[in-house]
């Protein structure tokens, strides 16, 4: 204790915590200067980094080679995505319907006003900036393309009937050409040894993502770009039973068998419809 007191203030050498006052001032100044210089260097480094970055596309995409696939409605339970509801209890499915409606607000004709109508079934390659303000054009995807699952004809997306509509979306990756000329399509099956076929209606037809939505040129080039969607209407689901369903996007260049990455190229979810 005595030693510690001496350490805090040594009256003989006039040292406070092992240093004299002037020493402390110097060391503080040193560190101040040191950190100012270091911060300066750091800022300089980040500034030059930002100056050298390409604003349109990242320098490397080695970590993002194949798109992830997501599901709407996206309700997570303890074991991942879960769509559990009771037909007779509309409180159990109201949330799903709202999620889908909210999600599809980005696909109203008003929201898609700036996008162009595309008819070609090939990649929409744009080498020049044809859009306004040095942008590139994006193709329209409106919710009516989802037909029965658009929420327009059936605002409850088939939930009360027990034939719910789910929406599959593929994550966007800059300059990613899926399918190698063939439009990638969604394919949903039961998981596990359940070999019976899953009865599904796909919208648009065949559950394809039209090639003219690809490639994606990045946020700066295509500010109004919206991901194409595929709606899956599940039919004849056995009631009061839990199923595990996987929806894959099938197409050349889309990996869906990475064990480390369950959302790459596919989406798995559990379904249980009670009545």
């Amino acid at each position, binding site marked *: 204790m005595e030693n510690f007191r001496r350490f805090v203030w040594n009256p003989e050498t006039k040292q406070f915590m092992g240093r004299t006052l002037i020493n402390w001032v110097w*060391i503080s100044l*040193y560190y101040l200067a*040191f*950190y100012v210089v*270091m911060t300066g*260097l*750091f800022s300089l*480094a*980040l500034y030059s*980094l*930002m100056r050298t*970055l390409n604003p*349109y*596309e*990242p*320098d*490397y*995409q*080695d*970590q*993002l080679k194949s*798109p*992830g696939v*997501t599901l709407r409605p*996206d309700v*997570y339970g303890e074991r991942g995505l879960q769509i559990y509801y009771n037909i007779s209890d509309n409180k159990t499915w109201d949330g799903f319907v709202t999620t889908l409606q909210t999600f599809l607000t980005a696909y109203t004709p008003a929201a898609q006003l700036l996008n162009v109508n595309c008819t070609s079934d090939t990649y929409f390659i744009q080498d020049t900036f044809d859009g306004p303000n040095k942008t590139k054009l994006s193709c329209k995807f409106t919710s009516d393309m989802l037909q029965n699952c658009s929420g327009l004809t059936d605002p409850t997306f088939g939930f009360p009937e027990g034939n719910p509509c789910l929406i599959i*979306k593929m*994550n*966007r*990756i*800059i300059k990613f050409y899926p399918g190698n000329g063939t439009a990638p399509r969604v394919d949903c099956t039961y998981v596990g040894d359940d070999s019976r076929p899953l009865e599904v209606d796909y919208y648009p037809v065949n559950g394809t993502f039209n090639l003219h939505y690809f490639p*994606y040129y*990045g*946020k*700066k080039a*295509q500010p109004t*770009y919206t*991901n194409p969607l595929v709606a899956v209407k599940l039919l004849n689901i056995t009631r009061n039973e839990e199923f595990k369903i996987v929806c894959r996007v099938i197409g050349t260049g889309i990996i869906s068998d990475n064990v*480390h*990455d*369950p*959302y*790459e190229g596919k989406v798995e979810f559990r379904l249980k419809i009670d009545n």
Partner: protein
Amino acid sequence: MTPHCTPLTPAAPPQGLGPGAAAERLLRDGPNELRPPRGTPECLKFARQLAGGLQCLMWVAAAICLVAFGIQRGQGDLTSADDVGPGRLGPSRGWAGWMPGCQGGKGGWMVVTYPVQATVIREGDKFQIDANQLVVGDVVEIKGGDRVPADIRILSAQGCKVDNSSLTGESEPQTRSPECTHESPLETRNIAFFSTMCLEGTATGLVINTGDRTIIGRIASLASGVENEKTPIAIEIEHFVDIIAGLAIFFGGTFFVVAMVIGYPFLRAMVFFMAIVVAYVPEGLLATVTVCLSLTAKRLARKNCVVKNLEAVETLGSTSVICSDKTGTLTQNRMTVAHLWFDNQIHTADTTEDQSGQSFDQSSETWRALSRIVTLCNRAVFKPGQDNVPVAKREVIGDASETALLKFAEATVGNVAEQRSRYPKVFEVPFTSANKFQVSVHEAGERLLLVLKGAPERVLERCGSVMLKGQELPLDQQWREAFESAYAELGGRGERVLGFCQGYLEGPGEGLSAEQLPGEGLCFTGLVAMIDPPRASVPAAVRKCRTAGIRVIMVTGDHPITARAIAGSVGIISEGSETPEDLAARLPSVRPRRQARARVLTGAQLQEMEPAALVDALRTHPEMVFARTSPQQKLIIVESCQRLGAIVAVTGDGVNDSPALKKADIGVAMGIAGSDAAKNAADMILLDDNFASIVTGVEQGRLIFDNLKKSIAYTLTKNIPELTPYLVYITASVPLHLGPSRTPGPLPDAWAPPSPDAWAPRGRQALSPPRAAGAMQSFAGFVDYFVALAQEGWWPALVLGLRPRWEDTREQELQDSYGQQWVRLPYAAPIRALCPYRAASHPLYGPSVAPTHPLYGPYMDRTQSPYGPIQTPVWLLHIPYTVPICSCTGPYMA
């Protein structure tokens, strides 16, 4: 206690014990052997290594990590695989620590050369029995070439001489005779010690001690009773571990609290806590220390110092006092002719080991006569078949002084054998302790040449004339005075002086008897003085020690005068330094003689001194010589030095030195002359027995201490870059992969210590370079981190505050700055397959990228590295930072 001086009652039992009595006593006392103490089993040593301070910290960290891993795994969180990292560190560190420990553990204990057989008289009959069957009271016979089978009291002896050098350090053969000459058993003449060598003569003795109760047995148990001292580096490291552990727990605790406040689950916060503790553990340190020490040990081995105990290398560097044995370490351990006195002049002979020194004027007639006496009056002969061996290295049959004279004659005049054959010997009277001279008579043409050598005063008694430049002059008073002063001078130098004279006899040589030889009227030719000369390299080494602030103290079993002389000639007592005795002689009035720089203390004086008085003497007199010391006294001297706060190195070769060697902070044994006991007790062995090698060792040791301090500081720098991510993670919400595993750490730290040779001499202290370097590494690391993320699409502005969404397991379409959407990988999760910070913040990142490269290198595939490859150009980013980092750590490295 002087039982050896009491007269024997009943007087010498010549017929010895009966077999019954012998068997009974054997049963009572046990066999006549030294019992080795129990050693530490190897597995225990290993266990101890595993339980050392730093290792303990690792084990705890490893254990917590494993527990956390188990829990998280159980919860299905695959990211926790990372937590196992430190679990691997513990055992491997333990192993690394044990390996050097292994080296130290080699070798058994004190191995004394046992006499195998003994000649014993039992019931009047002589038997050859195994030496371990001897009992107290047995009467044994020994003869030249035997090892003494037990401690025996001499009953009768004929020219018996023993070599006590391994026990007392005396290099000269000691005469053994029945009379008690001293109270101390080690000094007295009537005891021969177990395991010493009987060189010549015969003796009959009564066994007074056997086995562990012998003098050597007692020394051995003294040695095993002395605990090894903790080395300074061990103490330093322990202290260091305490501090580090304290800091680690403090910081860990702080972060734990912060994490809890932020709202992390308890387990996650716990993992944080562990991660910080582990981040703080300088796990590279042990390996760094070990490697630094091994490198130096290797270097030392090339310079003839074998280090048994790695830590000793460093201890050697902090040595402040060297207690050196005289014989063999400071001296050459061979009697050599040092001076001659003839023609009323002292001539200096060449005493260098390789005969490279200046010789004296050999043109005088007197020299011719003297050299002839030296050659003829000498019973020593070279062993045959050594014509090509240098004279100094040839093996000789004969005692030390005769050997010295023979070699001297061979080296200066040449061809002793031829000279001897020219003057065939007709008669001789060997040297006895009673008459103290040796005479031989040789044919020289018609006459007979009588040559005599012996104690100078006895020789002079027999002379009537003296030779000057070949002329015989009457021996007058003036000559006697000249003789006296020369004798006194040479004797005062600690040299053994012999007088030489010659005379001519008439008549045939046959039938001469000792009585017929003339008792006077011979012609005195000169004196020859011999000494065990200091090694050529020693004075310089002693001087070097002094300039390095190391005090050299001589501790010897030899005579004070000899000790003083050698101390003077090697510089342990510097020129002009006076002992209190000198002062008293010069200035009788000066009373407290504390201002005397030097002091020679004998064992007898030590015996009477209080321990405090010895400490006081060591403090007052910077130049100390201890003569005639016993093993216990050596121990006391070492302890007294240690009480003064000194780090003591002790050199020694004999069994008698082993307790002191063990007690010393570092014991240095002699590789050639050293007994196995000494080598076992020592931490270091000088292969060439040369004191100068110790100085090399000290030099290397000092270097290593500096280097270690630097290495430790350098190792510590990594803590800062390892801690900053936590700080940034929590304060700036930047997504970072935080886990307790930092696999690439230790190896580069350990294997890339800059060559100590390249490290700077001490002195300049840079301003907190490790911390500064650590901060720079942090900045460098974060630059790399931001660059790598930006190049993959995550710009710095987006990254700040991104953590909650980044870590959200339900977020599968997190948009980067380019609008791309990313899923979250549960494996290597938070970083979404990017972890450049950790690679970049490695402390040796600038100087040595290579070791970490395999883990983060661009060609590595994700299956092997959970963090995935990082684009090559990221590796170039740190380059601007290596300049300040290296220039900052530069003073520590170059």
